């Protein structure tokens, strides 16, 4: 329940109806507790000159390759039946991304049978939405290649607390 509240709250905060263009600037202009934000206030990646990635990009790589890889292929590259998310995020804004991950998607007709489940109730995904978005954004802009990020910032404390709260006590 908390998860859906969090997701809904985030959706309200993001400007509705804005279509992200490829020219949308992903440059990080500020950071809060280890999360980098672009000039629109949406989460984004930050890769230092020496290749060190921010925590969210690194965490997104791990979570992507556990929960999303199974249909969408490695590194956001797509499979024989699910789209390459590194391309999808180029034409999808942050709000839309959260919406699809939370509610799923159904394309069932005579030509195809593609169904993505709703992950809003799955804490293994819902607690890591920003991580996934940031990682895929980094892949979309080729800031991170088809590799496990070798160098990363430390897990921010505020993040660790939020993660524990979201995943539930155990």
């Amino acid at each position: 329940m908390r998860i859906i509240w969090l997701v809904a709250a985030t959706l309200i905060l993001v400007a509705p109806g804005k279509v992200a263009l490829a020219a949308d600037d992903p440059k990080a202009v500020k950071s809060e507790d280890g999360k980098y934000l672009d000039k629109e206030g949406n989460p984004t990646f930050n890769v230092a000159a020496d290749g060190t990635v921010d925590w969210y990009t690194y965490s997104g790589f791990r979570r992507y390759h556990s929960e999303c890889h199974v249909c969408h292929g490695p590194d956001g590259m797509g499979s024989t039946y699910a789209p390459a998310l590194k391309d999808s995020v180029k034409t999808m804004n942050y709000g839309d991304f959260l919406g699809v991950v939370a509610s799923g998607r159904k394309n069932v007709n005579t030509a195809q049978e593609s169904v993505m489940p709703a992950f809003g109730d799955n804490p293994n995904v819902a607690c890591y939405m920003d991580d996934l978005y940031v990682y895929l954004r980094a892949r979309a802009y080729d800031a991170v290649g088809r590799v496990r990020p070798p160098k990363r910032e430390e897990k921010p404390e505020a993040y660790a607390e939020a993660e524990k709260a979201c995943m539930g006590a155990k």
Partner: protein
Amino acid sequence: MRKVLSAACLGAMATFAVGAAYANEELNKMAQNPKDWVMPAGDYANTRYSKLNQITAANVGKIQVAWTFSTGVLRGHEGGPLIIGNMMYVHTPFPNKVYALDLSQENKIVWKYEPKQDPNVIPVMCCDTVNRGVAYGDGKIFLHQADTTLVALDAKTGQVAWSVKNGDPGKGATGTSAPLVVKDKVLVGISGGEFGVQCHVTAYDLKTGKQAWRAFSEGPDDQILVDPVSTTEHGKPVGKDSSIKTWQGDQWKIGGGCTWGWLSYDPSLNLVYYGSGNPSTWNPKQRPGDNKWSMTVFARNPDDGKAKWVYQMTPHDEWDYDGVNEMILSDQQINGTERKLLTHFDRNGLAYTMDRSTGELLVAEKYDPKVNWTSGVDMNKSSPTYGRPKVLDQYSTEKGGEDKNTKGICPAALGTKDEQPAAYSPDTQLFYVPTNHVCMDYEPFKVSYTAGQPYVGATLSMYPPQGESHMGNFIAWDGKTGKIVWSNKEQFSVWSGALATAGGVVFYGTLEGYLKAVDAKTGKELYKFKTPSGIIGNVTTYENGGRQYIAVLSGVGGWAGIGLAAGLTEPTEGLGAVGGYAALSNYTALGGTLTVFALPQ
């Protein structure tokens, strides 16, 4: 001695006499007719061998496409058709259509069955919406649907005779495996190892669809149908609570051990053989204990489901090496003595040769030299770890621990071989095995369980073995000695089922879409043809109107379509996208076709 032998013979004959009404006699007899292909694996022994010899090593280079059939469905096409007399039964991935074609009437569609299934079952299928084929028995075609429904169709009309729900997709259970008709029952497994389903094999009455028995892979003795005294592992009774005492608390209830692979049957021993899959979750730290009986070879009595013997190949799995691959039954000599054997090419990279009546382990050897997580199975009968694989700490994801990336493990989770079935030729006494040649980094981390949602808990990264660029091999294996006899490199994993024939030819399909024929003795490539899409189906043969035909489904997908579509890693500078870095999507796209070959008239 002689008196005992006679008694045993009489006993066996008595069983057959009593069982005159049983479908297995009819089916067993039908399976002897080389013109037909009456069960998914060809015969009860799962040999995928045909006595047909019109096509030989000398003339196979001349075969041509005889006819084709579009299934009308895209996504991964696993399995193959059944051919009974003039009728061919073709199945498809979700929505699981079944077509009955009349081969004597220009392959006309006599009937078509299309179940109505809730598409919400699609995302609960971990590895594409595949189906491994229908079964035949007692005048009915049996289809195991994605939503776990087992439906019996009148083979002549396609009308539903009965229908039963085998599991709950709302809890993550789905259906992909081919059923097996044994005596008066039809047996079916279930999928959901990535969703925390407590999996089972269930037997239903052939005529009515009433459940006869259900054997879970983990749980209390009365649920797993194991007897503490008479069920043995390595000749010793497994004892009370053999499963639940190897799980922490109630974890066995979401334990996995899924049964989505192949079933074989020995009518004279009256034993059914199959393997169970991975324990849930992929994070070994969240489920301490051996997790019995996941990753286990089961030998069960098909009348009541009781297990005669078991063997857990990968205790406390740390890599997702499901044990569901086919159990091929052969009678061969070991050290001069005729033995009843069971040969199994496991995901974990070891090929096991066992005595199928007692469960004695005879051979356990790597069938890909790059397999590295184990130094081998303890074959010392007096050792306390007899039959267990020795795990090397360096490749143990349990030892590496949560949130630590354990690197360079071979094979990758998709195993040295996945469900794609091997073939056995009694002429050469060799097994023909389609293999994967891929390694991985694997990082477990904590996950929470929600019914109907994936319960995975590991990050995976796959690549070809260091220094190599090809991702598959098609090999010939001697099960008596545990040795590779010949090995053909393939750019991509070989994900099709093999076929061996008395004509001395072995067939398989490649992920790029090639149907290939090789010499059974030497492996020399004799023929290849690019079908409309990548092949993950099983090559089948039959005879009609005096001609031998080779049939294979094309339609790329399955786990290969997920992991290999975009290539495993970034192409290396200068090399371009070749070898192990090649993307399957550069060679093939989605399709759904049955291509049938024959010698020109």
